[in-house]
């Protein structure tokens, strides 16, 4: 598909470095965890998870995202998608745990919306660097929410993994995780020792070129799974023994260790 010329209809300042952009293009069939390729005219095209049917939630980190932050209501971006494999939504009677760090809350928030609508209770461990950067706390309010901040400015001082270490996970049917890879890997290790990693789904991040499963830029070792097409959401069992948590590749294909 060609990029869909999409008009920005609303911008919400979530934190000093994170904004949600709403568009006049709605991806009604999108499953939580799926992404769109966002074309910032004249700059670059980058992958962003849909944080809603017609929104992306963006952290300003470099060229494309800085350019996005200069755009206002009425300006346009090109959107292609929805692409990739999303999360498996929970069944009615299942118990759900969300673990989100930083902007990693973006792919998980639509899942929280779904379970709220279905009347399922969800427990969330929501981490961020400081109190100003806690994302979507109201969207996760469908059950207990444990907040952790690196600097202790709100909730528990420390990382989501500190909270997880003290959380009994034996009862949960599904555990959904997204955040920086090191955080996700620490979560994976904890859940693996408890032998519940197979109930877990992780949303991964790799450098995308084509974004549609052809070029192989986002392939993970050792099975050659494509993060853009076979993922970005993977079951914990698919990640066992993989490069996950160890290294990724940059745009030239060179390995970068975490």
């Amino acid at each position: 598909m060609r990029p869909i010329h999409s008009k920005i209809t609303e911008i919400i300042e979530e934190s000093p470095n994170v904004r949600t952009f709403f568009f006049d293009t709605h991806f009604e069939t999108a499953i939580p965890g799926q992404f769109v390729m966002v074309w910032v005219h004249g700059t670059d095209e980058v992958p962003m998870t849909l944080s809603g049917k017609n929104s992306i939630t963006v952290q300003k980190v470099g060229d494309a995202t800085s350019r996005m932050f200069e755009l206002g209501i009425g300006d346009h971006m090109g959107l292609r998608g929805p692409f990739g494999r999303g999360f498996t939504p929970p069944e009615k009677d299942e118990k759900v745990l969300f673990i989100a760090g930083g902007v990693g809350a973006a792919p998980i928030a639509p899942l929280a919306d779904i379970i709220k609508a279905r009347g399922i209770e969800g427990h969330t461990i929501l981490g961020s660097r400081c109190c100003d950067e806690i994302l979507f706390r109201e969207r996760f309010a469908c059950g207990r929410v444990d907040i952790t901040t690196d600097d202790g400015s709100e909730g528990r001082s420390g990382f989501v993994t500190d909270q997880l270490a003290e959380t009994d996970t034996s009862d949960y049917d599904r555990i959904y995780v997204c955040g920086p890879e090191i955080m996700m890997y620490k979560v994976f290790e904890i859940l693996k020792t408890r032998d519940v990693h197979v109930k877990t789904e992780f949303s991964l991040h790799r450098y995308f070129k084509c974004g549609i499963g052809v070029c192989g830029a986002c392939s993970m070792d050792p099975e050659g799974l494509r993060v853009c097409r076979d993922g970005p959401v993977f079951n914990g069992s698919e990640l066992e023994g993989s490069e996950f948590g160890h290294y990724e590749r940059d745009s030239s294909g060179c390995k970068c260790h975490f």
Partner: protein
Amino acid sequence: MNIAGIELKNPTILASGIMGTTGAALARMGRNGAGALVTKSIGPVPKKGHNNPSMVELECGYINAMGLPNPSYSGFCEEIGIAKSKTDAPLIASIFGGDSAEFTEVARGLLSSKPDCFELNVSCPHAEGYGASVGTDPDLVHEITASVVDAVDVPVWVKLTPNVTDITSIGRAAETAGASAVVAINTVRGMAIDIHSGYPILGNRFGGLSGPAVKPVAVKCVYDLYKALDVPVIGVGGITCPQDAIEMILAGASAVEIGSAVHDDTQIFETINKGIDAYLQKYGYSKTEDIAGLSHEMI
């Protein structure tokens, strides 16, 4: 089947630039039935490639301008080793450079990882100073091919660009310089513009067309090369089903490479192989060699 100096498991080969950046991805395509595997084109130094968008699906095919991203030959030897250790499909190293010295440097640099063959990319249409910038000049193609053939002890294939007036003159240059086969075609130079914003869609503004749109172009190139050359021709461009592969073989291809179609089906190699076998059986042939170039006899 032995084609142009290498023992293919079957006539369907993974084309360069598709799932070819890591050894694991290549091996996955080998497990999915590819008869041989061509790597992403590898050059002398690490290259990031062009900005995105770098590949977009259009109504009739795909347009891409990746810009030859690669980790350089020193960074890629390990990946070839992994691909070779994880699959028994022959491994063809695609390489590029700006001149014969660079091509030879890259080929020599990859030799320690023991590729079964080299494919020279003198045909990428959107990398300044590389690819088609050198591949449209028969003398340069001759010089580059001769120098790589001289430097390595495995077969050398030369992948040609269709963006020339007469592809056979370039094919002949490759053949007389010692190429074991020619591969046709690389992408057809093209462009797509977003009519709403006015921006060219690709980060590089223009790029190369692939997929169904280019098949008739590829068939004609293969047909002409088959007639003009003695070395085998490998057909590539727009193959998405067994019928496409058979058409290419009838035009003169000894084997085919498949690229964009991996988008719709990563099992495409198996599907096409089965379809070719069924066709051969239906029309009473025993092997693909029996039908290669057959359409030339239908006058």
